[in-house]
Structure formats: C-alpha cells, structure tokens
C-alpha cells in the first residue's frame, strides 16, 4: 500500500531528468526526496501527481497502477513551493475548493473547512484573502486545502523553500506533528538535508535523476553508501591519501606526511580518499605522541557552532565544535591541537588522484 514507483524515467529532449527510479513509501509514512537541484526530485513528484507523463515506468497509488490516470482521478494532495493559492478566493473558499468539486453537501463542507482551519491553527482567518496573509500562513492554507478532500497521498514540493529560515524551522516541525495527527502517506521534496533528517521517516537521496540511497535518516547520516550521499549530507572534509604498506598516508611530503588512523578492509597499496565530517573531528589540547596534530588557522562563529579551520601537513580541515565545548577549550588562532576522527568514510580511488578529483568535482564535493 502507500505509494510505489517503479523504473520511472523521464526525458526532456536530450536531458534525462529521471533515470529508472524505483522506491516505495509505506502507508502513513512521511518520506523525503532529497537532492540538489536538477536531481529530478520535483519531476518525480509531479509524475506521481500526474502532472507529468513518464517515458517509462509505473506509479502505484495504494496498490493500484495509476500510471495512466489523469491528475483529477488520483486524489493526491499537492502543495507547491509558492503556495499557488487562488488569489481571488478567501481562505475558506480555497480550502473548500476540492470538496466543492466533489459536490459535497454544504454543511459537510463548512464543517470540514472549520476542522481544517483548526488543524492548521488558522481559526478566524477564514474570510481573509491570500494577499492578507504572511508566507507561513499561506503555506498552512495550501496544506489545509490539499488535505480537505482526504487525499490518499500528500505531495509537497519544496514546501518551505520560499520562507525564511526561522519560519522554515517552525513549519518543518509543525509539519511533523501534523503528520502524526493526520497519518496520510506523504512525500516531500527538499534540497535541505537538515529538514529531511529532522522530519521524515525515510529519505530517498537523489542525484542526477538516480537514486543514491534509501533509508532512515540515521542510516543516511551515519552510513552514507556512496560518495555523493556522504558529501551531500553534512559537509565532509575530503582528504586525499595514499595507501602504502598497509598504512594510510596523507599530506604534503615536504611538510611531513601523516598517518591517518584508518581501519579498513582493503589496505592494498594505491590511491584513496577519506571523508570526515566537521562534527566528527574531535580536537584536544593535550598532546600524545602518535596523535594527528594541526594548527588552527581560522575560527568562525556560525549560529551556535564554531567553525575551526585547521591545517595539518598542508591539508585544510574544517572542524565544527559547539559553543560550550569551544568556550571551555578556549581555542585561539595559531594554537596547536590534536585531532581524532570519531567517524570517517574510506574510499579507494583506483583511477588516481587527478581523475578522482575530477570525479569529486563532478559530484559536487569540491569546486
């Protein structure tokens, strides 16, 4: 049950927007389609809604093959990034639209509209016009409108994209709660990984029209299965390394290479890449002999974390430390610190560093 897509493919001329994508969404779950722009996520959503026709593949809604159904018959709720409210109608009329199309009796419509206004916490706003509402309020109306006809599936296309950061956070959390209440199978599209991780039950990571990984937020975050996923989730440090004699070495030979404490299955000699997220590098002031050490060359305060730039044997690393820890350690520019990696990802790079750089560049790791 729920939603399933099989082998969806969509081309626009020569450009392949969606490339044989398949995934399932369990009944009642909230799933995020996460990816950079151009990854095909919005197109997939529109195909599910019936607003685009796939060139290949099938869409299943609550178990039935809905691929050839026109949008009107699919009973999907859709929320656009820019709300797409009917500007010439009041909030109440907007919400009632789907019910009026179904020719429901007037009392029923009235009751349901009230119910939804309460649900989205806009009681009393019924007679206002969209132009009289803030962005966040408009989005709540759009949601109410989509939910009114009790859709079997709720689709949201970058629903918070047009809102500012604070409103976004609030709304994202609120959506999570709403979903608990309403329990409708939902898919939402976003490029914001924090949002995806925070509110979804599962995440489908997309890149260039293909599925990179599907899994629970923790899985995606902790165990990225591809380089793209690893880099996309979190801001990984990319360390080029060479494996020699079972040791993983990195850094500038002229400055003295360092050995990275990597435990991996395949330590045959060759080129490799180590990905470490800023939050997974732990700095300490106390030195011990075989520790990695580096010099602090930059400190920036960003919201509630400090972004520390460290140089180690010519390698520039980004470390993020929360405010309290930073204050207790008292880091200063020019200070030396030891590093430990609490988590990392190790990839072999058979084709050599240059080619690997090229690949990393293409994948968006580096510029």
């Amino acid at each position: 049950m729920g939603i399933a897509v099989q082998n969806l493919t969509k081309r626009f001329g020569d450009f392949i927007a969606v490339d044989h994508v398949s995934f399932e969404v369990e009944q009642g779950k909230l799933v995020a389609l996460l990816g950079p722009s151009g990854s095909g996520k919005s197109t997939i959503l529109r195909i599910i809604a019936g607003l685009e026709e796939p060139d290949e593949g099938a869409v299943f809604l609550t178990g039935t093959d809905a691929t050839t159904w026109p949008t009107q018959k699919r009973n999907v709720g859709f929320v656009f990034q820019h709300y797409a409210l009917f500007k010439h109608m009041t909030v109440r009329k907007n919400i009632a639209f789907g019910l009026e199309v179904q020719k429901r009796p007037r009392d029923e419509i009235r009751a349901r509209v009230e119910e939804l206004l309460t649900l989205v916490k806009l009681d009393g706003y019924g007679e206002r016009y969209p132009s009289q509402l803030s962005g966040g309020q408009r989005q709540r109306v759009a949601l109410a409108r989509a939910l009114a006809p009790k859709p079997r599936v709720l689709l949201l296309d970058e629903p918070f994209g047009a809102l500012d950061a604070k409103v976004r956070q609030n709304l994202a959390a609120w959506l999570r709660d709403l979903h608990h209440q309403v329990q409708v199978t939902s898919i939402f599209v976003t490029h914001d990984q924090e949002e995806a991780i925070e509110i979804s039950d599962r995440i489908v990571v997309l890149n260039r029209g293909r599925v990179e990984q599907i899994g629970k937020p923790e899985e995606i975050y902790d165990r990225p299965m591809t380089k793209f996923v690893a880099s996309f989730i979190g801001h990984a440090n990319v360390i080029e390394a060479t494996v020699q004699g079972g040791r993983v070495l990195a850094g500038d030979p002229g400055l003295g290479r360092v050995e990275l404490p990597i435990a991996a299955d395949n330590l045959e000699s060759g080129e490799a890449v180590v990905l470490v997220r800023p939050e997974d590098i732990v700095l300490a002031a106390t030195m011990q002999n075989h520790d990695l050490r580096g010099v602090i060359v930059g400190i920036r305060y960003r919201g509630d974390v400090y972004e520390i730039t460290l140089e180690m044997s010519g390698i520039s690393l980004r470390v993020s430390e929360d405010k309290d820890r930073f204050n207790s350690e008292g880091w200063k520019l020019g200070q030396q610190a030891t590093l430990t990696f609490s988590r990392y990802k190790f990839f072999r790079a058979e084709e050599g560093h240059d080619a690997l750089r090229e690949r990393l560049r293409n994948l968006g790791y580096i510029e």
Partner: protein
Amino acid sequence: MSPASTKTIAFRRIPSGDALIKIAVFSYVGLIVILPLLTVSLQALGQGVFKIWEDVTQPQAWFALRLTFVSAIAMALLNAVTGTAMAWVLVRHDFPGKPFVNSLIDLPFALPTNVTGLMLVVLYGPVSWLGKYLKTQGIEIIYAQPGIILALLFVTFPFVVRSVQPVLMELDKDIEEAASTLGASRFTTFRRVVLPHLMPSILTGVALAFSRALGEFGSVVVVAGNIPMKTQVAPVFIYGEIESYNPRGALAVSLVLLLVSLLILLLLNRLQHWGRERGT
C-alpha cells in the same frame, strides 16, 4: 505488487479536448486571416514579377506609394517626439485633471476613422472660419498634404504614448538621481540614461504608428479626398482601382503594402526581444 516491470508503454492522454480546440482555432484563423492573405498574395504574384513592377511603377500608383511613405515618415518622426513628451508629462508631472487627460489619449482609438476625417474637415475645411482664415494665409489643409499628415497624427497619436508610458513608469528614479550626483545635467541625464532605456518602446510605438499610417484609409479619404497625383495615398488608390473594376492595379499596390507590413511586424518582433533582453 508485481515485481518491477521493465517498461510501461508510454501512454497518451485522451487528446480529444485538446485536438478539438486546436482544430477549431486553426480553422478559424486559417479561414479569416491566412487564406484571404494567401489568396490575394498568390493572385498578385501570379501576374508575374514584371507585371507587378509595371503596375507599381505606373505614375499614379508610384505617386500614391511615395506620398504614403513620405507622409507616414513625417508623422512617425513627429509622433516619436510628441508621444514621448506626452508620456513623460503623464508619468512625471502632476496637474489637475490628469486621470481625465490620460483617458482622453485613447480617443483616437475610439473614433471611427471617417469620423476623424469628418472632424478635421469641420475644423479646417473651406467653410469653417479657421479654414477661411488659413486660406488667406495661403495654408491649405483640407484636400492637401498637410491634411493627410494631420489625419495620420490624430489616428496614431496613442501608439507612442501608450508604448512608452509603462516603461517610463517602471523606470526607477534612482538611476537618474545617480546620474545627477555624478554631475550630469538634466538634459544629459535624459539623453544618455533615460532615452536609451526608452528606445525600444519608442521604436515599437513608432513602428506601430508607421504601420497603421501606411494603411490608413477612412480619415485620409475624407480629409484629402481622392485627387490622383496630388492627395491620393496608396490605400485610397487601391480603393479607386477596386471601384473601377481594375483589380490588377489594386493587387500590385496591395502586395507592396502587405510586404512592408510584414517587414514591420518582423521588426517589431525583434524590438520586443531587444527590449526583453534589456529588461525593459
């Protein structure tokens, strides 16, 4: 659910609604616009290019065409200036009754063309006091070229104004203020900052006015009459040929006017692209 099917046949939404609309619209435009134009063009071309050239260069026809073009150009130049000035005054200045005046600009659109001609005859004709006075000064308006230009100025007045107005309204005064802080006089600012910005819209208005003037009939035939080799413009010439059952002459000159119209339309298209690129 069945295991992943490898391919679903690309499906077509039922096209009946769309197709019907397309058929209806295309037939309509085809019947009312494309077919008549094609017919007349083909019939004209069917005479052979030489015959057409002969008909066009025949003294009466040639005079009519020349008169039409010269008058239209004179009108276009005048309108470019006055129309822009009018738009400027409407957008940048305030005066009592401004909204009313703004609506009055559309008067020429509302009046039938022969009524325009009629009005001009009433005002400047040999019977009116103004006309008599002008005659004593040696100025002839009715049944003479000045009348033609006057009529053309009247019917095309709104084109440049309405074309420039919206662009001027959108123009941020900041740009002009910046120029003046840099030392530019009002005139220099206008010449080097504002005018280039307005150029596409001015040219669009002028092209529209010119195109309209080439084909203008009603007002001109009433004001200037139908005196061959003196006040007969091309559309009036064509009318004369039709009335005297001489389709050949009519066809040739019609073809010339049509071709020029087409060129102007293409030019207008380019102008709009240019304007869009510059964000105006």
